[in-house]
């Protein structure tokens, strides 16, 4: 967070919000965390819809910000680790994570191949959504763990109408099913598209074809050699 120290009453209000959720949902709330001036609450997937209703009706979180998904599968090629490191030799694509294994600080879950995020997690897929109170200027990020084989959760469309498009996007990008959604159909991708592109096991073909960085091993474009030679002379 920024330098400006977060006023303590801000964190206090966030704790209160988390307590209110815990009271309203009982054991529906699995974990919560206040960090860096923000609040995360992890709920059971069965309490996902109830959490939204509670947030809107009683906690004054009137603004729907976004809804999306997370895939904690460990795939070094697509995890912000296999990227170009100027100190590494060419071709050594995985040199980026020299300071430790991927998933530092993830604890036991790292052994199973995934890390957990803020407020914890126990499965590969998580759905996350952010709500905000335009009145109290207080936001919360809600998360729920989804089953890996059949990620499904109740829709929010009846509570926050804006969730419609976001759920369609999460459906096509992550393959989550939102029960009760009025029309889960493609948002961006063509109708015949197969697969869920944002999943970590979905390859990014551009990178498969030409490893990063293209810079060191790329073939010169036709005419590039002469251009470079001319530049050198001039």
């Amino acid at each position, binding site marked *: 967070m*920024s330098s400006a120290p977060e006023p303590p009453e801000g964190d206090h209000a966030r704790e209160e919000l988390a307590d209110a959720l815990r009271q309203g949902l009982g054991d529906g709330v699995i974990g919560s965390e206040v960090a860096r001036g923000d609040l995360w609450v992890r709920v059971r997937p069965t309490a996902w819809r109830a959490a939204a209703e509670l947030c809107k009706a009683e906690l004054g979180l009137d603004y729907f910000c976004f809804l999306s998904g997370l*895939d904690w599968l460990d795939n070094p090629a697509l*995890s912000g680790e296999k990227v*170009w*490191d100027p100190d590494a030799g060419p071709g050594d694509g995985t040199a980026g*994570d020299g300071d430790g294994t991927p998933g530092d600080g993830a604890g036991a879950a790292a052994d199973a191949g995934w890390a957990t995020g803020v407020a914890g997690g126990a499965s590969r897929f998580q759905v996350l959504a952010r709500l905000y109170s335009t009145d109290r200027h207080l936001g919360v990020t809600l998360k729920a763990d989804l089953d890996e084989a059949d990620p499904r959760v109740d829709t929010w469309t009846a*509570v926050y109408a804006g969730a419609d498009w976001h759920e369609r996007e999460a459906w096509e990008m992550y393959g989550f099913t939102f029960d009760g959604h009025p029309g889960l159909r493609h948002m961006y991708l063509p109708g015949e598209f197969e697969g869920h592109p944002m999943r970590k096991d979905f390859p990014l073909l551009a990178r498969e074809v030409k490893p990063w960085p293209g810079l060191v091993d790329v073939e010169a474009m036709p005419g590039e050699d002469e251009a470079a030679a001319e530049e050198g002379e001039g």
Partner: protein
Amino acid sequence: MAVTADWQRSAYIAGQAADARVNVELEAEGMTLNLGPQHPATHGTLRIVVRLDGEQVVWAEPVAGYMHRGYEKLAEVRTYPQVTTLVNRIDWLGSFCNEVPFILAAEELMGIEAPPRAQWIRTILFEMGRMANIILFLGDMGVQLGAITPVFYAFRDREHVLNLIEAATGGRFHPNYDRIGGLKEDLPRGWVDEAKTAMGKVREFCDELDDLLMGNEIFQERCRGIGVIPPAVGLAYGLSGANIRASGVDWDIRRDEDSPLAWKHCDWKVWTHPDGDSFARYWVRLQETREAARIVDQLLDGLPPGSIQAKVPRIIKVPAGEAWCHTENPLGEMGYYVVSKGGLGPFRVKIRTPSFNNVSIVPWVLRGVYVPDVITILASLYFILGDIDR
């Protein structure tokens, strides 16, 4: 089908027509009109399918995705400094504003902060991005309603701001100027004085448009009472920025949230309008442009000296964690949810763009309006295609 008397048949048709107005599922025979993907009102390639009953829209559905570039996936194979190049292209009219929240999120996770001078220059360029973006809207809204002149004024006066952005960053549309812990370089000599002159020009433009459009009876007639969005509906759809302030919601992230940027040092006002119609949305944006010029003027006066770059390691690694950073962009609330696993690049970036939510209300707000008003409403909601599709 049994033979029925004429009066029975007309009663049946009248009943069906009445049902169609209240219930979309029971719509009578109508006509499907395809707006776009290349309609001027769509600013790019958004296609809107509208079902008409006579002149009235009974059902509308925007079809996005003609320009989806997969930035969320691409960010996973980029280093943090490289991501700004991608996000520049989200809202291409106010590109610099896209870089800032991402850099702030990375800085938040790293626990560093740029020095004051960098924050002030960031804020100045952020507000200039806002001006460059909204000036075009102010002219464009006119051209969509048949007033050709304002858009030429807009293109002319936007240059003042774009020239400044180009002078400082090297890029008119894609500055790629923000860095983790600071900025690419300091402002060029003489820039501050030129910026002050340009702010005067921006204010003149606003006054001109005030006369040309706001006071124009035809413009008012076309906009007032058209596309009214009640605040509760707008918030549930996630409308933000001027669109929700025009519905009377007094919320501006620049003022209401604690940000390292320099807005807190300025004296300015958040404008709202109680009406929630197309006219209100135009009015709020016009005032916002004036306020942006006011903010920039104050920041130019108080620009602190010093370094523009905090000390950061040569190879930037962001500690593991999750951060949500959002700012009040020209189009509304723009935010990045960044998940880091401690590597050189982000593990996951969720890009929350304002236009995506702003356009998701289109099916709701177009229901029951007349065809010419479709254009008014789309123009006044103001979206950028790159900002919907990412």
